[in-house]
């Protein structure tokens, strides 16, 4: 809301409060401001009279003028404006003046002719282009005859105003009016509001003889119509134009300006119909499906049953609360108008405005209006049309009114106020607040009955009054305390706690946590998975890049990797834990996922020849470490199988826990990334659901271990895992550890075969093993491996 200081001053005495102090005081009671801007940013301006205007000897468009700017003070000024003429009163900026664009006026020589100042256009003194008339946009501004030479043209034009632009909260519909602002400022300064003048000189005829109204929809609870005749369209007075500009509205003509002026003043949007084109009946109804209406902006609108229209007997003439129709617009030769002051269902206005245009009017309708203001605005418009546009008001108001005009009465106690605010206010403190707000209040002991004026549509319950007390009295004296409550321990949700542990462990393993967007593009949703599901898609995405909820986190991690690689960051160890959402069997599902990605060097000391590069087995090491940390040792397997197509088909594996697939690990398919990327992704919800046992101390064996090595020659296709399984199974409980210590292919090994060497550790925690019994097991293992895997013992 752009508030004109001069406009405000009509209704409240703001004393000598500076613009800044006024804005700050309003902020303190909850009305933040965005900016404070003077309407005109120029200084050192005077009204000048062009006594003489001759062509510049050395220019085809400039003139040399003799301008009288005071008694016996005539300056020679060179002017390039096309509309400069002898006998004009103009705005002159004298040497020393600073214009809003930063230009300082100095005595100068323009193409050989001395110039002692500058004749200004409205733009040059800081009036925005959109507020200027067509003539003013093209040249200097010509003042009227009555402007006195040598005086301040800013005051003459009523431009000595300041705009404070407030960012209001959504509840304060009442502050979308200068009157509402006046009440608010009045509460701050403890001053009473002066009400606007509405008394008419004369009223003629009877409206019933000229007009009928027919309200056919319940979406219009209040409709008032009056007729004003014999208007003379002309520019509105300077003060009104200036106030409209300061309030952000372009002046048009006296009639249109009055409708806007009253909206700004009372907060009630009005609409003026040209009586010629409207006819003698107003119907308020819902639009027909597909009904067409050309609005003021010349656009043809396609309407639906959700839009409220104002119509005559025949056709729609306006979109209620949003925009008038072109067919009933007030024009240069309009004489008789019908004034509409009404209240419409805010939800319907919101719907239509969202579709067509959000305007100053619709913003006010949407937030809710005070029915008493609907009447006041009508009276005020008639008054101004009579006074400023030569109109004659026809007697009587056509009205359909289903609204409640009664002020709300809310009882409240001092105890309640102090309990909620945690303060100890006295009755006097509380009474003072309500008096300042101009609320009627009755005091009985420590209870109050507050009558809230209808203008405060935001106040309905006790708590709203408490807020008012806190706002106007201030809560600076409220001393912070801590809640008095039962002692208890704070807890973390189980799922969250587990995810934190995983996060910390992965950090310790060298990975950085990243955070990426939930919304991804269409293509990413189906990547890195073969699962059957329906992605969740937002109805109205902002961009193609963020339209669907991701299913896998890996596309996001790939994006982080490529962002970093593009910036020459080559070592990327990252992970993310996040919930994902999707639809399955028409139900919204939520699953926690963990994804990790590594590429580049994991450990390095170049001069010392240490360099560990990311590869499948480094990633596998991280995953195994994590799973062991989660207590899943010996319960998970990482095995070959069918993987989603985004994984390298021969450098990837399936991760299972208790035979259940929980995720994948592998290299990202080279078609997706030139740089080798190694990733894994787990369904964390599944992993978190697995029960693991508590930790029990195991006595460390005092007895010696016996170590044995062997190597086998096997077909390439035989996996290490299958060999390990056989060895472990055959070895039994005395075989406590198996390591693969060598895998070899090449010289001395037949094509299609590989040699794989193991180190076995035997131990009995209760006694010393002897060589013979170990050899017996060892030989049995060899026999079994040879049999099951067609293996050939190479070395023992």
């Amino acid at each position, binding site marked *: 809301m752009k508030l004109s200081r001069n406009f405000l001053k009509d209704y409240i005495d703001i004393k000598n409060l500076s613009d800044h102090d006024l804005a700050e005081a309003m902020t303190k009671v909850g009305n933040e401001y965005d900016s404070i801007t003077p309407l005109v940013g120029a200084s050192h301006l005077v009204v000048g009279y062009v006594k003489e205007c001759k062509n510049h000897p050395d220019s085809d468009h400039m003139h040399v003028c003799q301008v009288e700017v005071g008694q016996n003070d005539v300056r020679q000024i060179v002017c390039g404006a096309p509309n400069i003429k002898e006998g004009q009163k103009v705005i002159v900026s004298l040497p020393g003046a600073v214009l809003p664009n930063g230009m300082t006026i100095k005595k100068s020589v323009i193409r050989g002719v001395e110039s002692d100042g500058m004749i200004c256009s409205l733009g040059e003194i800081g009036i925005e282009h959109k507020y200027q008339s067509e003539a003013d946009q093209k040249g200097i501004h010509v003042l009227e005859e009555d402007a006195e030479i040598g005086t301040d043209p800013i005051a003459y034009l009523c431009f000595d105003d300041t705009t404070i632009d407030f960012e209001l909260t*959504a509840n304060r519909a009442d502050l979308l009016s200068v009157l509402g602002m006046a009440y608010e400022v009045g509460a701050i300064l403890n001053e009473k509001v002066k009400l606007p003048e509405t008394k008419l000189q004369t009223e003629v005829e009877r409206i019933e003889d000229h007009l009928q109204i027919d309200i056919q929809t319940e979406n219009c609870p209040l409709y008032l119509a009056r007729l004003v005749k014999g208007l003379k369209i002309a520019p509105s007075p300077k003060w009104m134009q200036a106030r409209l500009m300061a309030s952000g509205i372009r002046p048009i003509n006296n009639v249109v300006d009055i409708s806007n002026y009253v909206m700004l003043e009372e907060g009630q949007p009005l609409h003026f119909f040209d009586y010629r084109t409207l006819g003698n009946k107003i119907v308020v109804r819902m639009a027909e499906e597909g009904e067409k209406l050309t609005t003021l902006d010349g656009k043809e609108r396609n309407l639906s049953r959700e839009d409220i229209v104002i119509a005559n007997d025949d056709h729609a003439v306006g979109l209620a609360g949003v925009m008038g129709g072109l067919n009933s617009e007030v024009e240069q030769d309009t004489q008789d108008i019908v004034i509409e002051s009404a209240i419409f269902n805010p939800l319907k206005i919101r719907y239509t405005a969202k579709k067509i245009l959000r305007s100053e009017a619709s913003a006010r309708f949407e937030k809710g209006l005070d029915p008493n203001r609907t009447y006041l605005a009508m009276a005020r418009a008639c008054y101004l049309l009579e006074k400023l546009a030569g109109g004659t008001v026809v007697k009587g108001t056509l009205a359909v009114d289903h609204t409640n005009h009664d002020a709300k009465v809310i009882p409240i106690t001092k105890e309640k106020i102090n309990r*909620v605010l*945690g303060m100890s206010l006295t009755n006097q403190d509380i009474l003072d607040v309500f008096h300042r707000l101009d609320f009627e209040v009755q005091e009985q002991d420590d209870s109050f009955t507050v009558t809230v004026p209808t203008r405060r549509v935001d106040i309905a319950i006790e708590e709203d009054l408490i807020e008012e007390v806190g706002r106007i009295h201030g*809560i600076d004296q409220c001393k912070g305390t801590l809640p008095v409550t039962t002692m208890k321990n704070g807890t973390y*949700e189980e799922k969250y706690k587990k995810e934190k542990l995983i996060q910390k462990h992965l950090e310790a393993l060298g990975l950085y*946590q990243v955070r990426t*967007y939930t919304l991804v593009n269409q293509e990413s949703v189906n990547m890195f998975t073969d699962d059957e599901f329906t992605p969740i898609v937002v109805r109205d995405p902002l961009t193609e890049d963020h339209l669907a909820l991701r299913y896998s986190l890996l596309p996001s991690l790939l994006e982080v990797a490529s962002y970093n690689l593009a910036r020459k960051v080559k070592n990327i160890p990252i992970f993310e834990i996040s919930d994902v959402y999707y639809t399955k069997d028409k139900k919204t599902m939520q699953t926690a996922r963990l994804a990790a990605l590594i590429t580049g060097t994991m450990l390095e*000391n170049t001069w010392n020849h240490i360099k560990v590069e990311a590869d499948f087995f480094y990633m596998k090491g991280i995953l195994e470490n994590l799973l062991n940390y989660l207590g899943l040792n010996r319960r998970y397997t990482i095995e070959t199988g069918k993987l989603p197509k985004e994984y390298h088909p021969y450098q990837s594996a399936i991760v299972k826990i208790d035979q259940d697939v929980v995720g994948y690990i592998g290299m990202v398919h080279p078609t997706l990334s030139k740089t080798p990327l190694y990733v894994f992704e787990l369904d964390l919800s599944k992993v978190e659901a697995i029960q693991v046992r508590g930790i029990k101390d195991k006595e460390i064996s005092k007895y010696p271990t016996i170590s044995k090595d062997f190597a086998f020659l096997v077909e390439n296709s035989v996996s290490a895992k299958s060999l390990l399984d056989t060895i472990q199974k055959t070895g039994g409980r005395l075989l406590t550890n198996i390591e693969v210590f060598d895998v070899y292919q090449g010289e001395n090994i037949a094509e299609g075969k590989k040699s794989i060497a193991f180190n076995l550790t035997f131990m009995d925690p209760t006694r010393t093993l002897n060589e013979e019994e170990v050899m017996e097991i060892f030989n049995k293992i060899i026999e079994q491996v040879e049999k099951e895997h067609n293996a050939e013992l190479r070395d023992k």
Partner: protein
Amino acid sequence: MEKIVEEIKKELEEDLKKISSMNELNDLKVKYLGKKGKITLLTKDMGNRSVEERKEIGRYSNELKSHVTSSISQLEQELSQKELEAKLENDRIDPTLPGTAVKVGGVHPLTKVTEEIEDLFVSMGYDVVSGPEVELDLYNFEMLNLPKGHPARDAQDSFYITEDTLLRSQTSPVQVRTMLKNKEKTEIRIICPGKVYRRDDDDATHSHQFTQIEGLVVGKNISLADLKGTLEIFAKKLFGEDREIRFRPSYFPFTEPSYEVDISCFRCGGKGCNICKNTGWIEILGSGMVHPNVLQMAGYDPKEYTGFAFGIGVERVAMLRYGVNDIRSFYTNDLRFLETYNRVEGDK
């Protein structure tokens, strides 16, 4: 005999002087103490001597033996010391060469801030609770006193999925869910961290996805003063002991009264600088007393219960605290950016 012994001693002395290595010393040992060594030879033909002579030879040779042994062992010690020193010196490294870059990962700055806030509130007995990001309009708006068509919904323009479901625009629905779930209608003290979504175009100060932490306390005598006291602790913990807070009246549909909370500027201490835009204050969070309609809808009798709620933007806190200028930095995850946060923080 004595002469021979003296000669041998003399010779030994000469020999010892020439020794420079363990090997030479071993040879020397053999020369004097070996099976054919000089001392052994002294006693070689003892059988042919008289008892007296044997005694004398025995005495001399024993004395000589012990003299030789001790001389050699002394030298042996010196030599081994020298050799050890030589070996150590040989193993000299240049400790100024770079160390092996042992790598650990790190926490995301948003998580770091979130955890700090969580820790603070958990220490005050709050529970950390989460809820779904795909949320019902009912919980995200309606039960928070924001019926359909409410103008305040504009401030939280949301990503709708269907008519009734959306990506939550705030973590407040977790408050509603927690109150509904509490069948006994007992006291509540929670904070709800999580991702939220609003229809904002991404730029330096806006993000369509961001992180919020909301707090809710419901009890029988909870007042605005309690909210103020709680947030004072919060401000001091996150921005330093000297911080003061200021409540500015505002409006949120789910609280009444509602306040924006400013902290005194941690950079200039209130004198005015570019961080606080010369006001001395920085807006940090929104808060208020839970609206009776919200309590009522969640099954808490507003005559009996009151409560306060507050909401903090984690990105905003992190941006202020670490001087991050572009909110998108948190989501692009430049490793160089992330690495910055991988250390203990000082106060300044």
